[in-house]
């Protein structure tokens, strides 16, 4: 929960730093509601990228969310009018919380899930607004504050480097990005890098598949067991 407020604040601060006020930051956290993608999106606010490119990047960066849904297909089935919001709000944090929190005895599971998801987004939006307003009052030199984004991705990469069953995908991502940056330049590097990554990972499927097979089975089993 604290984590969501803090990262939300960083996001708000960075939007403020582009010159847009807190209402824009709040609007994005309300309608997009996707941690990493919102940070990537700050780079698109200059208007230098085409909409098709933005759509493609969003799809690939958020692709993991498709798999969160798979775990919850049966669980969300009976949630009626709350179901669309549950699907909309299925972020990394909410997924992790839904997987790790036990429904208290005597409480309707659907209502409990809905409250978790809603509270998470309220924390996220609150953090965003606090960060943006804080940024607008900040009178010190903010040169370099954009590094917050790099620090966030460095933290995520470190976590994955330590816990993911194989480090090959991370290295492939790194190498493809560096090559794409040097060939296509800063503005256009994402799409070629994404295609190269998917192509290479596809080619390496026979080797890597066995390494992550355990991960997949273990993660889904743990999550289903909790539910």
């Amino acid at each position: 929960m604290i984590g969501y407020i803090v990262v939300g604040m960083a996001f708000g601060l960075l939007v403020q730093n582009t010159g847009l006020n807190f209402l824009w930051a709040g609007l994005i956290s309300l309608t997009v509601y996707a941690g990493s993608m919102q940070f990537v999106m700050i780079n698109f606010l200059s208007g230098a990228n085409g909409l098709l490119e933005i759509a493609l990047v969003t799809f690939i960066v958020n692709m993991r969310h498709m798999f969160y849904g798979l775990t919850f297909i049966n669980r969300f089935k009976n949630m009626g009018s709350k179901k669309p919001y549950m699907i909309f709000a299925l972020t990394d944090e909410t997924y992790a919380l839904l997987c790790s929190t036990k429904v208290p005895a005597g409480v309707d599971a659907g209502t409990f899930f809905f409250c978790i998801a809603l509270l998470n987004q309220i924390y996220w939006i609150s953090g965003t607004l606090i960060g943006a307003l804080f940024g607008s009052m900040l009178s010190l030199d903010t040169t370099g504050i954009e590094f917050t984004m790099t620090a966030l991705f460095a933290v995520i990469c470190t976590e994955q480097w330590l816990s993911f069953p194989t480090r090959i995908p991370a290295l492939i991502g790194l190498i493809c990005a560096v090559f794409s940056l040097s060939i296509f330049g800063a503005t256009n590097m994402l799409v070629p890098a994404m295609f190269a990554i998917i192509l290479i990972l596809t080619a390496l499927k026979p080797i890597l598949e066995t390494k992550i097979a355990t991960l997949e089975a273990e993660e889904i089993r743990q999550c289903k067991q909790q539910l």
Partner: protein
Amino acid sequence: MQTTTIANLLLIITVVSLVTIFTRTLPFLFFSGDKQPSKYVLYIGNILPPAIMAMLLIYSIRFETPFKYPFGLPALISIFFVVLLHVWKRNNLISILVGTVCYMLLVQVIFIVK
């Protein structure tokens, strides 16, 4: 940083929002408990996140100048610091906050680009 027109901003936000909703809705539209996506899609979905995050790490430092002063040193030093701190403490808040302050000090005080 320069930002685009209000209409274009709204358009960008709408696109990102709709595509995000689309990725989250997909499994609920096409799959059920016993109908699973193909082995290939499952494989890519599981293997992709570390690769994409590494790509985004590079993307976030794309404006650094590796062949010109300060040779990307502020970013490299700060990333090294974040990773070290994170391996040691495993605390997101500390890693991000201290890393950002480190970078800001480096670019404002030590590696000044005129």
